[in-house]
Each structure stands twice: as structure tokens, then as C-alpha cells.
């Protein structure tokens, strides 16, 4: 993921500047934002929902909101603002789905980004098993803990940003991340036994 800074050259304008152009319905700026953020957003949704198609659908919904919005303020960090949209969309999605447990669908190799092509078959099998256990354990976490854990581990966000996204004090994020990790550890132990 690319977290832009204000010092970037005009070839790589910061997200905040692009967003200001999107407010004026600049299609090129919007396309650039989509290109930068589609991968992190889709993966954010996938890690929470376990369904590739639904993850892409929700990411698209976020981009539609980005295009249509009139409320963006340049003082806010774009990543925080974007994840806040994504977070609320996910909360709405879960509310509409009731308390249906998350089930990660098996992935085809084409959908995966395989980290080490040199890994042997045994290693790959072990990786797949670990992945499966992790996904199952992650799905059992309380919704807010899961969201906070994913945001802190994968999205390169500061705790203060996460607190802003989720709408809780910074200290609460610190506690929730630790609890989530503890719960995940306990669940993994149960699964491996």
C-alpha cells in the first residue's frame, strides 16, 4: 500500500490533493485513486468477509461513495477517511446479514498472491493449513476486535487513525488489539489440538 506524503512530486500527487480534484468531478484523479486503493480495500473486505466477490462488491461501493461525496475535508487524511467509509459499510453489511458467521471460501490459485514460488509441496501444504486455521480463528473473533486487528496489522494505520475510524479512544484500540491477538491464539490452540 502506498501512504502518500505531501512531498511527493506532481507525477505522484498525494491522495488528499487527488480527492480535492475528485470533488470537482475530475475523472482522471478518481481513476488514479482507484488504482492506488483497490488492492488494499478489496483485501480489507476479504479478510473480514472471506468472500472474494462480496469483497470486490463492497470495495466498489466505497469508490462510488468517494465519487459522489461532497463532504470530504482536506484536513483529514485520505486513508483514514476512506477506511471510515469502508468500516461503516462493513458494519451495515453485517447488520443486514444478521449474525451469520463468516466462512472463508476456498481460494483458487489465480486469486492468490503466492509469497514464495520456490517453496516445496510440503511447505505449501503447511502454509495452506496454517492459513485455513487462521481464517477460521479470525472468523470467530467479535466483529469489532476483528476489524481493529485487521486495520492495525495489514493497513499501515496508526492507532490514532484506527480510533478515528472506529470511533473509540486510542487506548481502547491498544487494548482491543491485544485482546484480539490473545483470543486468536487461544482459538488457534483449540484448532491445532
Amino acid at each position: 500500500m502506498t501512504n502518500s506524503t505531501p512531498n511527493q512530486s506532481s507525477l505522484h500527487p498525494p491522495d488528499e490533493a487527488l480527492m480535492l480534484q475528485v470533488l470537482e468531478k475530475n475523472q482522471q484523479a478518481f481513476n488514479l485513486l482507484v488504482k492506488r486503493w483497490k488492492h488494499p480495500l478489496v483485501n480489507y473486505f476479504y479478510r473480514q468477509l472471506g468472500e472474494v466477490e462480496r469483497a470486490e462488491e463492497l470495495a466498489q461501493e466505497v469508490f462510488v461513495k468517494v465519487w459522489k461525496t461532497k463532504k470530504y475535508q482536506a484536513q483529514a487524511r485520505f486513508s483514514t477517511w476512506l477506511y471510515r467509509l469502508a468500516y461503516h459499510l462493513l458494519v451495515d453489511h453485517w447488520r443486514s446479514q444478521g449474525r451469520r458467521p463468516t466462512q472463508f471460501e476456498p481460494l483458487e490459485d489465480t486469486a492468490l498472491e503466492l509469497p514464495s514460488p520456490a517453496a516445496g509441496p510440503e511447505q505449501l501444504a503447511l502454509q495452506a493449513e496454517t492459513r485455513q486455521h487462521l481464517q477460521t480463528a479470525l472468523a470467530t473473533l467479535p466483529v469489532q476486535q476483528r476489524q481493529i486487528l485487521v486495520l492495525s496489522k495489514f493497513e499501515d494505520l496508526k492507532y490514532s487513525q484506527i480510533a478515528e475510524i472506529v470511533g473509540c479512544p486510542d487506548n481502547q484500540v491498544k487494548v482491543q488489539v491485544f485482546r484480539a491477538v490473545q483470543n486468536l491464539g487461544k482459538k488457534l490452540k483449540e484448532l491445532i489440538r
Partner: protein
Amino acid sequence: MSASENCPAPEAILKALAEKNNQASVEHVHTCLICQQKPELQAALSVWQLLDALPEIQVSGDFEARLHSRLVKEQSSQLRWLQFDIWFDFLHIPALVAVLALLFWQPLELPATQAQHWRRPPKTERIQTSFPVKTEQALGLIQKIYQQRSKKG
């Protein structure tokens, strides 16, 4: 102060790992014997590391094309609403008249036999005092005409 009191809390170590900024506390965990003997902290660190095994998916090739067709669809539905707005602008006068008529129309509470149909309920009377036409007089005149006609049979 004992050595363990100098050790950062597990929550703080996870924060340092997540934000990738406080390398001192991360290094501390690797070198501190006390921290290395805390099962709670070590378990948390292993889980944190294990999370890297979670898969990262590739976005499908037609993602952007689908997004653009979705935006076009949204814009066209927005345009339909715009057209409706134009019609509403055109029709706002008759609509306003209808709303006013509804406001003034109020069924009387009296039974039909005792109803004085020329009398409006107090609310409308109050509103009508501000009207330039003296409706009371006009209604009185109509009442007189009716009475004369009923006398004639």
C-alpha cells in the same frame, strides 16, 4: 525499580510492531530475558507473526471496468431524478394550491342535522381574517338567499 517494571507492556509492544515506529521496545523484547520468559507476551508475538500467513488476494482484471459501468448506471438514475425535479418545478403551483385546499378543508364535528355549513371551524376562521375578501359577509348573503328561497317553498 526492578527490571520487569522497565519492560514495556505487551499492548505497547504490539502497538510498536503495528505502527513500525518504536523499534526500541521491539529490540527490548528480543534482548530482555524477563520478556522472553513471559508466556503471554511470547504467545501474542507468535500470533502477530503468524498473521502474515493470511492470504492476500488479487483484484480481478475487470474491477475498474465494472466500477465505471456502475458509476454510469448511478449517474443515469440520478439524471432521471433530475428530470423529475424539472417536472416538479413546473407543477409546483398546482401542487401548492392542492396543499392549501387540503389545509382549509376540514369536516365539521357537528351532526349533519345541526351542522351550520356556512360556518368554518375556528382554525380556518382565524386564517381567513387575514384574507382581503370578507367571506363572512359573502356567506351571510348566501344564507339570506337560502332562507328567502325556503320561505317561498
